Structures are given as C-alpha cells and as structure tokens.
C-alpha cells in the first residue's frame, strides 16, 4: 500500500476539478491514507474465479417505442441556469488562445 502524498492528492483534485488550497491537500492526504489502508483489506479476499458484480440486478437494455413525447421546455430548463444568453446556457470560455 503506497503512502498517498500531498502531490498525489493535488493530482486527484485536478482530475476531479476541485481547486483546493495547499494546506487542505496535506489534511486530505492524511485522511485518505487512513481510509485507503482500511479499504485495501479487500485485496486479502480470495477472489480467484469470482466474476465481478457491477449491479445487483441482471440488467438488460430497456427500450421505449421510438416516438416523440413531451420533454422539458427550454424556458424551464434554463430557469435555474447561473447565466443565460440568447436562450442558451452561457458558459465561460472553453478554448485557450495560444
């Protein structure tokens, strides 16, 4: 079980889109270390030839008839938006100019 470092936590935070201050990275690293060493006990279970279960039900694809039905109107969909422009969600820029 490798120790989890603040640098690794910073990497996880970036992957998870969480802008955390440096002092919090240390605290989370210590807590995640404790939790991970506890949950790592799963590796001691003998699971040779055991298939994984991703879901409690034996799921199959569920289809509905391919017909148009009522859906949420754009006004209702935009009502809770943090920013709206021209009846669309306005978002910050997504491309960076080099």
């Amino acid at each position, binding site marked *: 079980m490798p120790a989890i470092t603040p640098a690794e936590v910073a990497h996880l935070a970036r992957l998870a889109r969480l*802008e955390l201050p440096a002092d919090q990275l240390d605290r989370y690293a210590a807590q995640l270390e404790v939790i*991970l060493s506890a949950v790592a006990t799963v590796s001691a279970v003998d*699971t040779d030839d055991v298939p994984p279960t991703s879901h409690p039900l034996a799921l199959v694809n569920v289809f509905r008839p391919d017909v148009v039905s009522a859906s949420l109107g754009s006004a209702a969909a935009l009502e809770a938006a943090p920013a709206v422009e021209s009846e669309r969600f306005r978002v910050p820029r997504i491309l960076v100019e080099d």
Partner: protein
Amino acid sequence: MTSELTRLSASDTAAAVSRGEVSAVEVAQAHLDRIAAVDGQVHAFLHVDNQGALAAAAAVDAARASGAGLGPLAGVPLALKDVMTMTGVPTTCGSRLLEGWRPPYDATVTARLKAAGIVILGKTNMDEFAMGSSTEHSAYGPTHNPWDLDRIPGGSGGGSAAALAAFEAPLAIGTDTGGSIRQPAAVTGTVGVKPTYGGVSRYGLVALASSLDQAGPCARTVLDTALLHAVIAGHDPRDSTSIDAPVPPVVDAALSGDVRGMRIGIVRELSGDGYQAGVRQRFEEAVEILTSLGAEPVEVSCPNFPSALAAYYLILPSEASSNLAKFDGMRYGNRVGDDGEASAEEVMARTRAAGFGPEVIRRIMLGTYALSAGYYDAYYGQAQKVRTLIARDFAAAFEQCDVMLSPTAPTTAFLLGDKLDDPLAMYLNDIATIPANLAGTPAMSLPAGLAPEDGLPVGLQIMAPAMADDRLYRVGAALESALVDRWGHHLLEEAPAL
C-alpha cells in the same frame, strides 16, 4: 385536539379524514404548528412548505366533499428527504452547491405521493449528497435526535427520522445507499425500510451511487411503513433499473404478522464483539419473542460480510465521483469565480471546491483514486468481486432461513461531534446495513426497545431475499405487536417532551 392529531398514526389519520372526523387542512395545520414549535430545537427540516401543504390538504378535502374515493393515505402529512426533486420548492441535497435550486420536475416518488393525496410538509435535512451517518455533514447544520438533542439522529436521512420521532410528521421518505434509512430509524426509535433494489423508482432521486441507491418508506409503525411502501413502489418506465413486476404484498403482510413456521436466520458475523451490550440484549430478546410466536431460529453464516465495508467504501466513492461530476455550475446550481477571465475548467474547479463540503470532497477523491489507471483492478475491480461473494452469502443463507436478523447499528446514538473528525469511525456505523445494499436485497429497521445503559433506542434489522419485501413486514408486525404489548405503549411515548 390539534396536539393529539400529531400523535396519530398515518392509518388512523387517513381513516379520520376519510370519515370526515377531521379535515386534511386541520391535520396539515396541526403538523405545521408542531414544526413551528419544535423544529428550532430539532432542525429536521431544511424547507417547510406551509402554502403548498395547506393547498394539497385543501384539495383532499375538496375531493372528499365531491364524493371522490380517497386513497389509504390521503390527507396524511409527510416529510420528504431533500434528495428527492419536487417542483416549487428548493432541492439542496444538504449542499451549498445546490442552495436555492428549484428543480423543474417532480421525482416519480414525489409524483406518486401527490397523486395519493399525501400532503408534503417540506424537505428534510441530510448529510450532504447523502454521504454520512449523522447529518453532521449537512451544509446547513446538523439535525438533533429528539431523544437527546445533544446526540446524532443518524444519517444520511436524519432529518426524515427525526421528523417522525419529534411528531412533526407521521410519514417520511428516505433513501438508503448503505443504511441511510435504517440507521436513522434505529437511533430514533422509528421504522424504515430499504426496498429491494429496483422496487422504487430512482427517477428524480439525486444519485449518490446508482447501483446501491434505493428510496424507501419511513414511519412510526410497521403498518404505516407498509402503506407508504405500497404508494411509492412499482415499475416506472423512467428508471431503466426499475423492476417490471408486481409489488410484493407488503400491506397484507403487515396486517397478518403471522410468523409461525418461519425460519429466522441469526447472522453469526453481525453479532457479538463490536456491538454495544444493550444493543445485543435487545436483539437477543427480539429473537426470543419471535421464537415464542412460533418462528424457528437458525444460526447462519455469511463469511464474507466482514469484507463488505471495505468493498462498499471503494464501490460507493467510485460511483459517487462519477455521478457528482455533473455538478459543475454550468446548467444549474451556484457558479463561483466566473470573472470573465477564468476558463470553464477553472470556474468548475472553483465552483466545486466552494460548493462541496469536506466529506464529499474526500469521497470524490477516494473514488477518483480507486478508478485511476494502475489502481482500478486492485481496488474497484476487486471490490466488485467481493460484491459477488456477498451476494452468494445471502443466497446460501436464504436456503436455510426465510429472513435474517441482526442489530441495525452497533451502538445507540452517539454525541454530535464525536466522530466528525474520524471518517473511518463514522463509516463503521454502517457495518450491518451495507451488505443488503451490495446485494440489492430488502431490509427493515424497527424499534427493539431501549438500551438499559443509556436509555436510547435500539434498532433491529430484518433482511429478506430480493422481491420478498413482504417478509420484512410480516416479521416486523409480529415483533412490534409483541413489544408494544410488553411496553404498554409505543416506544416513542417514552421519549422526553420537546
């Protein structure tokens, strides 16, 4: 009269409304008054919908006046966990990120409650995005246990359970991913059921871990819980994991309570060390009572249950880190740091860091770690295999018994703040409840009495095979009836007055 209205069971309330002995508006007003009087101490509710509740109650009274037949719970007030969407009122999931968000649609559960004439009083407090066992992870402050205001009401659905125990509502909705219905029921002296996975629609339930989440009924009696179960359960085309089969006969089972000849499995791995003495005492007493009623106790072994907690705390954070990725402040919810210069990615990272509390951040990072390249097989993949072993344990045990019994939680309600800084200690509260979520099987918690050493409620857990939810109610009703006879009253009559 109005203070007495809040002490009635849901079935008695519905009967009184149906016979015209009291109006639904009077019932709703009595509960709104009770909330106004005591919720300052309990903090079960995040939002009380006075107007909406009175309007829904007036509609029930109007329907009755026009001669329309009323459903079995029409006019009965209910507290809705704030993880279920409902139009016209906020849905926050106990998070700052969603503060003030008003969803544009009703969850299927919400729609079914409304269609049944159930009067929704408001939204109840919870650990943020249902992550926790104490409601202390709510961004809006903890809920207090009505038995002792210094203690936790359980979690994540502590608000719903506390509302029942404080006589603020006779019915409530909870959601249970690892015990969030059952553990709060246990520590507040109330009843809660996690139905078979897929038994109740998840449409409009803000997802924590999609393969584990299940909404369910909460009440003060087994019969009331069954009546509410029947209202919310059943196939929903809007949830692709919803089971397309008849709802098990839960109300008939609750009315019967006949356990003669039933084999009651005592789970060796969920007793003994690690359980408080008074919890063990009440559990053993419950087994004796069921035996005296004609059930046959059988010891069963579920050798993989001790690994359930570790598997759960890999599977849950993995699914949660994926589910919670949608909270990015772009389409709804609060957006932070959009100064015109920052990129979308920067704004998302600021929004999420500002909006999520520490427990949510811990679990998102834990899930991100467990799913990352290099660790996936060792953690998430291995946990999924352990999940298979847990399901096999259930299958083998249910060849020897009809239901399994255990304590719901290892201890009675602990003090607020006691485990807040020790995430792992908090996780251990769920040790007996988690296996049923991993296997998708139904389970109930109901009051088994008070622990002699601290005078606080103890919960008994009943587990049944998938789609045999009715067995929970059959055994629960038998035990409740025998215990209430012994006590001479409902357990909650012993709770201190607020």
